[in-house]
């Protein structure tokens, strides 16, 4: 059933937390290089355990992670990792270059820098930090971002270390690469804004441009990540992590609007049906392993086979929820799906619930048996079943009961992960602010006015000015200049444009439109590094390859068909053709096509050009062929009276 509510009417508030890697040479707390690699040679295994707070309680998120009982395997590479990344040596002093950048960003955003910076440890025990905490420091409070005269408030600006790179997670062993751990990040949290997703996106885009204008931040995929705090009226704040691209962001906001509003509609309906926490949500929990062992369901069989055939199934009675677990106020938005996402966190496949049964190989016989065991007598009662390894199932049952109770209040505060297709999926309960304590290995850093004054000279020019200058200097239109500025290749573009005679608009369009189009075909730009791009353009500048070859070369590399520009050039059959050879080839083509020349005269140019291109495409620049052919044809016609000499059309 779809309710007739226009999503446009849902009032959404979005607060951005932008994490931008800085383009420093070294990491934040050691002298290792900030370079991504997959060339790992060193491995070690660790377990993290939650630390107990003074109140005898463990942080909810930390406990949640530890419940998953993971072993973590770390992969390290020399050059980008030392004992600091391995959590085998105390952190060194804070990287001054990174600190200065964070201060400059703060000044640019009119934010108030704190008098003394204290490095904190923020507990994170998913393994992404070897220490079990992320080191972070508050640099500045307040300030604003100016978007066409409208001021978007800044809450805080922090400087922190990036986390390790997740390589894989099979449910028992999670693997991380340590090359990214410790790369400096600035985290900028903006005040929540409301509006249409498109308008909200403009905020993220503007902030990104402002950061890039400093020329002190890293570019490229993964160098900027947005966490977005999304809430709708009457709902809790949901934190969505891992949004990497702006077009993905719009979809995420739209999806969350529907999901959160849908959950509120479900809560309203439950309330209307007089369902509350007292009616009995999870008041009976029974082992239904024996009942389900008779099912023909493949999913059930697989779960039972877990843990050396010691898999179990448990059923939870949920009073008053019949019809509500599968109820979809919007397509695909239902409690059942939220529950399945939740148990996946415990390494379980999903849940079955009474609104969808009998189905999936679970017959009415089994459904009745489960109902009997749970003493489900009322038509309004529902049940949820979950299966797999015993200890996981036990944790999952607790979590499911809690989550079902939360359904009464609509949107639970939680952290979700963005998916590539612009949806979100549950990742963990939202962590509180209570999990920070001081990093006692590093002394506080006083910030004096003299330092701030000296840095205020280094506030970057506004990004729109930079784009205007870029457009003017290279005689490009504004849109192309913006594309270059937004791309990871601004510096590379300037380098190529300044060091070669190639048309800047040509360079710009190859680096933006053509690369984006290759990327849209599913090819990986990461395979094509800046040196390769520079090499290809230098060859073009030297006349060794033709304009037409540039994209073909990029494609070869990105398709993994060639590893180097040399290989790509060879694979494409691009051999340098010198002037003499060019003359010889064109002469030969003219000779072979003398009959057309004789019959059509100058009008044969088009056909001849086509023949020349089929031999010389990619090897010699098209314009060059054009001019040589034109000259030769004219000479030929002039020396042969009787041949047609009328003007030709190109």
């Amino acid at each position, binding site marked *: 059933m779809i309710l007739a509510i226009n999503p446009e009417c849902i009032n959404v508030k979005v607060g951005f937390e932008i994490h931008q890697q800085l383009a420093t040479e070294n990491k934040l707390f050691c002298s290792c290089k900030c370079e991504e690699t997959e060339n790992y040679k060193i491995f070690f295994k660790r377990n993290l355990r939650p630390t107990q707070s003074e109140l005898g309680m463990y942080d909810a998120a930390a406990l949640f992670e530890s419940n998953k009982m993971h072993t973590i395997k770390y992969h390290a590479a020399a050059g980008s990792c030392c004992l600091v990344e391995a959590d085998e*040596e105390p952190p060194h002093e804070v990287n001054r270059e990174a600190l200065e950048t964070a201060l400059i960003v703060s000044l640019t955003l009119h934010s108030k820098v*704190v008098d003394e910076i204290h490095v904190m440890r923020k507990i994170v025990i998913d393994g992404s930090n070897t220490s079990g905490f992320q080191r972070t420091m508050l640099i500045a409070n307040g300030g604003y971002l100016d978007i066409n005269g409208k001021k978007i408030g800044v809450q805080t600006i922090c400087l922190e270390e990036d986390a390790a790179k997740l390589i894989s997670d099979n449910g028992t062993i999670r693997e991380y690469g340590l090359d990214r751990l410790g790369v400096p990040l600035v985290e900028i949290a903006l005040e929540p804004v409301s509006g249409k997703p498109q308008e909200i996106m403009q905020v993220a885009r503007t902030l990104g441009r402002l950061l890039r204008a400093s020329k002190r931040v890293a570019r490229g995929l993964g160098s900027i990540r947005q966490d977005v705090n999304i809430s709708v009226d009457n709902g809790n704040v949901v934190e969505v992590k891992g949004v990497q691209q702006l077009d993905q962001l719009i979809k995420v906001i739209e999806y969350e609007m529907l999901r959160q509003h849908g959950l509120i509609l479900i809560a309203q309906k439950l309330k209307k049906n007089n369902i509350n926490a007292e009616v009995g949500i999870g008041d009976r929990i029974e082992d239904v392993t024996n009942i389900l062992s008779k099912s023909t369901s493949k999913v059930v069989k697989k779960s039972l086979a877990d843990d050396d055939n010691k898999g179990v199934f448990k059923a939870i009675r949920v009073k008053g929820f019949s019809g509500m677990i599968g109820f979809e106020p919007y397509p695909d938005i239902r409690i059942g799906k939220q529950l399945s996402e939740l148990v996946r966190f415990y390494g379980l496949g999903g849940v079955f619930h009474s609104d969808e049964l009998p189905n999936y190989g679970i017959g009415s016989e089994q459904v009745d048996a489960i109902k009997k065991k749970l003493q489900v007598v009322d038509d309004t009662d529902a049940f949820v079943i979950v299966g797999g390894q015993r200890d996981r199932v036990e944790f999952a049952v607790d979590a499911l009961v809690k989550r079902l109770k939360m359904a009464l209040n609509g949107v639970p505060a939680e952290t979700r992960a963005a998916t590539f297709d612009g949806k979100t999926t549950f990742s963990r309960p939202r962590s509180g602010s209570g999990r920070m304590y001081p990093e006692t290995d590093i002394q506080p850093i006083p910030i004096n006015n003299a330092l701030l004054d000296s840095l205020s000279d280094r506030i970057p020019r506004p990004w729109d000015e930079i784009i205007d200058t870029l457009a003017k200097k290279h005689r490009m239109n504004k849109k192309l200049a913006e594309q270059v500025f937004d791309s990871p290749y601004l510096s590379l573009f300037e380098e190529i444009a300044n060091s070669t005679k190639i048309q800047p608009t040509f360079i710009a369009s190859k680096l933006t439109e053509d690369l984006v189009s290759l990327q849209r075909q599913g090819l990986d730009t990461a395979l094509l590094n800046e040196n390769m791009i520079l090499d290809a353009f230098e060859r073009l500048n030297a006349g060794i390859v033709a304009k037409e070859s540039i994209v073909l070369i990029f494609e070869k590399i990105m398709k993994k068909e060639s590893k180097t520009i040399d290989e790509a050039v060879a694979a494409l059959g691009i051999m340098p053709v010198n002037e003499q050879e060019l003359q010889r080839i064109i002469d030969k083509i003219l000779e072979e096509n003398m009959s057309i020349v004789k019959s059509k005269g100058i009008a044969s140019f088009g056909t001849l050009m086509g023949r020349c291109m089929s031999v010389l495409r990619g090897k010699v620049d098209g314009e060059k062929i054009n001019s040589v052919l034109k000259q030769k044809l004219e000479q030929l016609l002039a020396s042969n009276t009787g041949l047609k000499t009328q003007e030709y059309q190109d």
Partner: protein
Amino acid sequence: MLEINALPNEEKKLTVSEYKGKSLTLLTDKGISVGDTIKISTSDNEFIAILMPRYESADENHIVVKLKSGYNIGIELSKIQFITKVDQRSYQNVSTNDSLLQIRRGGAQHDDWKKEPPPRIALISTGGTIASRIDYRTGGVHAALSASDLYASIPELVKHASIDPEVLLNEYSENLKPEHWTLIANKVSEKVRSGKYHGIIISHGTDTMHYTASALSFALQNLPIPVVLVGAQRSSDRPSSDAALNLIGATIFSVKSNYSGVFVAMHASSSDDVIACHIGTRVRKNHTSRRDAFESIDMMPVALVKGESVEMQPPQQRYVKLQERNNSGHNNFIVKSNFDSRVILLKYYPGFDPDLLSHSIMRSTYRAIILEGTGLGHVSRECIPKIQKAVESGMMVFMTSQCIWGRVRMTVYDTGRDLLDIGVIPLSDTLPETAIVKAMWVIANSNSTESAKKMMQENIANEMTTVTPIMDK
């Protein structure tokens, strides 16, 4: 008289004592203590925050507050226009029962031991924190040493033993002295003689843990059960701390080892998987910060704890003498817990001033010199007459090597032979740190210089071996 700073695990009361000068005056005037919620207006901002402690070494121009976001910041005193207390810190009664229920790691409950009582282990705490709690409110880290705290922090322990914790000392290990060794040895002796325990675990700061291990190895002879020292290279307030696994390893070894004696149990590698158990006189801290800083010198660790099993390293038994465990009998158990600290350890280096050896303080203060010589056991020619004088005056002079690995052999070169001629006594493969501890013990437990010299040349607790195995370092 030694003052021993024995501190029960009672919370340190928070005041403003960490502040000094101008900041202290301001806070005292306003009646504000650490932990109070305060409101502060500065020339450009306003905060409601909690007053935090200040590092003792930090300046007096800032006060530290924790914002609602959890971040600490320092606020410059001169910018404060207004400051007032909004709310007093409340001291809540700490209960760990909830967390015990919450954390079910390891899964086992006390029920596992319904059929037969679990092996009992005494845990003597001397400093460093094997388990701790963080006060996120103030950032303080407190030792968690009651039995319930321990089980709450490391629930896996329940599966292996019933642990009786006792806080004996609370000291950074660099502050420990030979008098502390005596105190620890006597406490261990008391526990051993009670006959209640399968093993004794001593939690210890790592810096001087190998000295204490040596000291106990000499002081506690014919031990019927294992005595295992354990520490942590990453403090226990971190999720990545090695403390829990080290303690679990020490517990498993204490319960399952077939041998008694004094051991050190720490990580075998950077990974959280294997715990290496080292003989107390043959172990050394060889790295400032790594988890596997402790290494057995010139031998493999005597046992490895992998998962829940103890793997003895059989070839070791050819080189060292290990005593069989005897849970029920402590009749042969001997305690000689006195140490005489009149021993000096001198490391020779190019440019070493030979006059140091003949200085009057040397003669009046010390009874023995342990030399940490170069290579096979050498010092420069200029030192020889000075050493000779020292020996003639009744000082005992022993030679060890700064190479750490390998044994001294003073008959190979002239210098060595000359040193032997003047009465320098080579200590074979005794580690320099073990040698000084042994000398302190020998002096306190012998009745003449001659018998002391004799004891120094005898192997008492595997500190001196006859075989150096071939192994990859």
